[in-house]
């Protein structure tokens, strides 16, 4: 068997840095949305003691993006959180490409399954 490790390693290095970059972007979006949220809500009293669930516009990917486009601060934070959730999903997607390039069909399939589960969860499959 050929030793593919050095090549793997460079790829992994690149992916690792991309992940960190993604987390930084997500944190920045959350912080910006959060700053506006705090300024607007500073004196109000939140009620987290009893569970009500979030309003519709903070629940689904499409609605969150729409609400963020009209600059609702909660939705901007939620976009940052979506970016964050997308980071590991992106990592899995990149791995599919890496396995395909190596003609590793078994692991390409394994990775596609993982990606499918993740997208099913995020895009609101009925669970």
């Amino acid at each position, binding site marked *: 068997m050929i030793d593919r490790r050095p090549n793997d390693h460079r790829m992994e290095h690149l992916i690792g840095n991309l992940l960190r970059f993604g987390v930084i972007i997500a944190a920045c979006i959350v912080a910006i949305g959060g700053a506006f949220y705090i300024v607007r809500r500073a004196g109000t009293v939140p009620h*987290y003691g009893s569970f009500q669930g979030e309003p519709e516009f*903070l629940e689904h990917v499409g609605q969150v993006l729409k609400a963020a486009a009209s600059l609702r601060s909660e939705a901007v934070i939620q976009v940052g959180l979506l970016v964050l959730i997308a980071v590991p999903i992106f990592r899995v997607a990149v791995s599919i490409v890496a396995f395909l390039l190596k003609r590793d069909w078994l692991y390409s399939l394994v990775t596609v399954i*993982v990606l499918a589960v993740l997208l099913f969860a*995020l895009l609101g499959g009925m669970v």
Partner: protein
Amino acid sequence: MKSVVLLPQNHNPDMTTLELSAILAAASICAGFLGSLTGLGGGVVIIPLLTLGLGIDIRYAIGASLVSVIATSSGAAAAYVREGFSNIRIGMFLEIATTLGALAGAAIALRVAPSIIAVIFGCVLLYSAYQTFRAPPADNENVPADGLATRLGMNGSFPTPGGLRSYNVRSVPAGFGLMALAGVLSGLLGIGSGALKVIAMDRVMKIPFKVSTTTSNFMIGVTAAASAGVYLNRGYIDPGLAMPIMLGVLAGSVLGARFLAAAQTRSLRIIFAITIVALGAQMIFKGFGGRL
């Protein structure tokens, strides 16, 4: 029931958004810092803190914790990758188990009473504390090759001071099963389940400890992303609550990683374990009392 730990007895229901955000951010920095120093992750501390300390509904707490788990796992990936220990094939294969488990766990969480979740959480905390005191991990050297693991191309190598060391992997089905359980707990409780993942790889599959821990870190983010997707769609992730927690835990864990090299982790782990026992016991009592 009286609080036994250093937490405020009950959260002031009139606390404003500004006050609550400041307290949450400070607490999350501590949780992230301790979680990263002890290797147990921020989730196990942040959820008891929110529920017992601040009277926040456990479902909101789980959503916020999951988000911070993703942040710390993905943020740390770059550092781990540089060292060249993680095994992407093992990780990806076991991800099938953890993500499906996470979906199941999240689905269960949506259907059972919060008090039951609190009791299970308490048990997991007690087990994590017990795990802290167990013997150091085995070295897993000279493990004989296993047919299934070899067919799946899981055996690998990692750098040591004396050059590359190759290793073999065993017991794939048992490891896969434990990973599914780790996924269920992650989805149900909003934690990374890192400890259980490492046990599955290190003790059951006989993977070298360094490879286990770094591969586990990679898997934690993917598992938590599966759960977070479900929670988001069900309205369990509140932006106002998740914001200070995610930023705080992330900042705390970055600080923790900086201090890790210098810190006396042995005594720290013991203090941390005792705290976790106290929190776990309280979660169980309050859960049984239906007070969470």
